[in-house]
């Protein structure tokens, strides 16, 4: 089917999030929808699936105008959405999740036999035949849960499928599986709207791309006839000078030296050194133990053996407090659950780590605190009207800069970064890279875990690759390739 959205506008209170946006998708097409955070992608898709209603504009299916007032009505028209945060009830079985709210029943008694047969057939259509329908949803990997969601969409007879950041928490292998399924759906005439920040994926799986900026439709392109630079320029509205800003830093002496580091079973015998001014990248599949290295260094996970030295001095870190006292900083993976206190202001969040610096006998000096926050906001280009704003209201990029700000009130000797640009748009990424470069130039030793290979390759001096809890090797970032890293990450020591 052909689906067209015309002149869609939507405001929340005084804020106009969509202004006359056009978008069209045909059956059998994979259509990327891109734009920076806050560009209006999610709102547009919520209007399409019926979760929101537009203030103005129309939706046409095969030329016929339709109104979609609820997700139920959207589903009845064949439009289904798979949210980034999956919508399954973790304690229920796969079967119950698939049929939630529309269980086949006979006078209220659920017909499990019929349910199970149908479930198996849908699961096998999405390449998840190995999933037992009776398994509880929470026992499945994120990748499998996603396939179950796709199966559910198919069971609803979806002809347009909206996927919001579907690869954000998948492993490389799961992404490959997902792409195979997506191509099969496409061959069967399903139209897929693909919302993602990952530009590389867009070029490998999508046919068309539409770009939104600040609630406006910027344009539509055939993927085969465009390139990375054009898309980014459309997204940010200016030419992005460099995706990865260059860093010219003479390496100092070894700052962080790690020998034979083990934790309670996730990582085994890790060795590495990081010099002042150096960025050591950490690559590997999800679950390979990269984050666990950082957590063990920072005292979150228990170190069972090994030695950690900072500037030659042996460290005994048992809790995060010890790590901070020694001069370590940690930009954690999940800024909402680990990095920020949501509901708190930008000011309170940015001074949480080093609050004592602005206090005398336990009493906070607000003048000193305000001045420090102002300086940090300028230094990190945090764009917010004022420091008292709730961090929840900031964009992903600005939130991440607040997490950096927490650590920069006293420049750390070693800064651990876990997926520092996750969920940050292209413009915000470049600014975060500049912050990393400035810290390196000031002599900080940086350890950066990232799942985005182009980022690891461009930003690191050397790259430590992890595979199943083992260190598969350390590569020189100037001479190594993505393929070499992927080989080491999937085959481990055999490859290195």
């Amino acid at each position: 089917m052909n689906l067209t959205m015309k002149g869609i506008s939507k405001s929340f209170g005084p804020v106009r999030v969509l202004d006359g946006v056009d978008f069209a998708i045909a059956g059998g097409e994979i259509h990327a929808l891109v734009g920076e955070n806050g560009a209006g992608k999610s709102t547009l898709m919520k209007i399409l699936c019926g979760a929101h209603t537009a203030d103005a504009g129309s939706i046409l299916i095969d030329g016929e105008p339709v109104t979609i007032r609820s997700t139920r009505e959207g589903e009845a028209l064949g439009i289904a959405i798979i949210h980034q945060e999956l919508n399954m009830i973790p304690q229920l079985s796969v079967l119950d999740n698939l049929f939630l709210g529309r269980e086949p029943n006979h006078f209220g008694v659920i017909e499990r036999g019929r349910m199970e047969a149908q479930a198996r057939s849908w699961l096998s259509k999405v390449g998840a035949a190995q999933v037992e329908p009776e398994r509880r949803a929470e026992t499945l990997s994120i990748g499998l849960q996603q396939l179950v969601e796709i199966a559910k969409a198919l069971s609803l007879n979806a002809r347009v499928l909206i996927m919001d950041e579907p690869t954000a928490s998948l492993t490389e292998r799961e992404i490959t599986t997902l792409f195979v399924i997506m191509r099969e759906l496409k061959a069967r005439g399903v139209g897929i709207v693909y919302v993602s920040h990952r530009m590389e994926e867009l070029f490998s799986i999508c046919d068309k791309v539409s770009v939104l900026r600040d609630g406006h439709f910027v344009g539509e392109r055939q993927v085969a006839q465009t390139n990375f630079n054009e898309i980014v320029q459309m997204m940010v509205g200016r030419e992005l000078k460099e995706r990865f800003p260059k860093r010219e830093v003479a390496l100092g002496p070894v700052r962080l030296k790690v020998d034979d580091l083990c934790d309670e079973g996730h990582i085994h015998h890790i060795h590495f050194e990081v010099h002042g001014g150096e960025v050591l990248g950490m690559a590997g599949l999800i679950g390979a133990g990269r984050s666990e290295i950082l957590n063990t260094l920072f005292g979150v996970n228990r170190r069972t053996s090994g030695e950690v030295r900072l500037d030659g001095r042996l460290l005994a870190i048992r809790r995060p407090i010890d790590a901070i006292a020694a001069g370590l900083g940690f930009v954690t993976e999940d800024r909402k659950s680990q990095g920020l206190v949501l509901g708190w202001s930008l000011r309170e969040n940015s001074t949480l780590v080093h609050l004592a610096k602005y206090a005398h006998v336990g009493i906070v000096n607000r003048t000193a605190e305000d001045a420090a926050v102002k300086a940090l906001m300028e230094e990190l280009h945090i764009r917010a009207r004022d420091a008292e704003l709730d961090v929840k209201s900031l964009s992903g990029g600005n939130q991440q800069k607040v997490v950096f700000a927490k650590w920069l009130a006293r420049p750390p000797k070693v800064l651990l970064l876990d997926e520092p640009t996750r969920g940050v748009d292209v413009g915000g990424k470049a600014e975060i890279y500049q912050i990393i470069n400035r810290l390196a130039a000031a002599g900080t030793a940086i350890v950066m875990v990232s799942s985005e290979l182009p980022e690891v390759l461009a930003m690191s001096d050397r790259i430590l690759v992890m595979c199943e809890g083992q260190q598969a090797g350390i590569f020189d970032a100037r001479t190594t390739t993505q393929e070499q890293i992927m080989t080491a990450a999937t085959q481990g020591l055999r490859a290195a």
Partner: protein
Amino acid sequence: MTPQHKATLQRLGPFLALVGVCIALAFMSPNFLTVSNAFDVMRQVSINAVIAFGMTLSILLGGIDLSVGSILAVSSVLAAMSMKSGEGAAVAVGVAVIAGAVMGSLNGVVIAKGKVAPFIATLGTMTLLRGVALVLSNGSPISDFSSNLFAMLGGGYVARLIPVPVVAMLVMFAVFWFVLTRTVFGRHVYATGGNAEAAKLSGVDTDRVQILVYTVSGAMAAIAGVILTSRLDSAQPTAGAGYELDAITAVVLGGTSLAGGRGWIFGTLVGALLIGVLNNGLNLMGVSAFYQLVVKGAVILLAVLLDRGGKT
């Protein structure tokens, strides 16, 4: 109206409700709006308010302290036993407050180090300490301390006008206000309640914060116990039963979130006063005790519903 204005208005909601109820009662009962009645209400409120200040801290952490009534009873019995053994009022108060702090820190250690849910941990100590109060007192009240100084604590006046418990309540309020808004510890309480994991990763000693908070809560319950014992000139091992619910009501009426991380001490003071004013007004109007319960319950539900209404 901007969102900020709306938020401020909502935050002041309990205070406006208090003012509204006072105005209404002033019209309905001529005896309500007198200086002596005002101090009477505040004195009646003081015990609950002092407990509720401590409770505010544990609720800000996302926890709760159900053991305050039992801590009050044990402290009260210990104060009475000190008085009976011939110690001075200062010693009796010191014994009670230190004992309260120790019992509170026991809660804190079980919760922070033992990783027991605060509801369960303090439910346990609530029962345990009630037993301790009964054991220590052998199940009977300890009365008649014949000490003017000790009697002052619950029944005396400052400047011949302001009851001592009211002064104690206002001083405690000022201290809590300062600690929560101006100190590193206060900031750490909000951080731990708002996002314990982020706080810990930012170097906040969340275990220490929890232990301190429950210690303070215990000490506050003991102070309330001293006031009560002095006022009655008697320590009852069964005293304080159900006080935890009154304190929780005051905290919640004041707008502090049971989910933790959000709230303020002024709200708790207002919440406690609101309960007290309602009691007092209904008494002055001669409403029967049975109907008073109905009215109080309805007011609590109404207040909480109004609070929710702004959030959607």
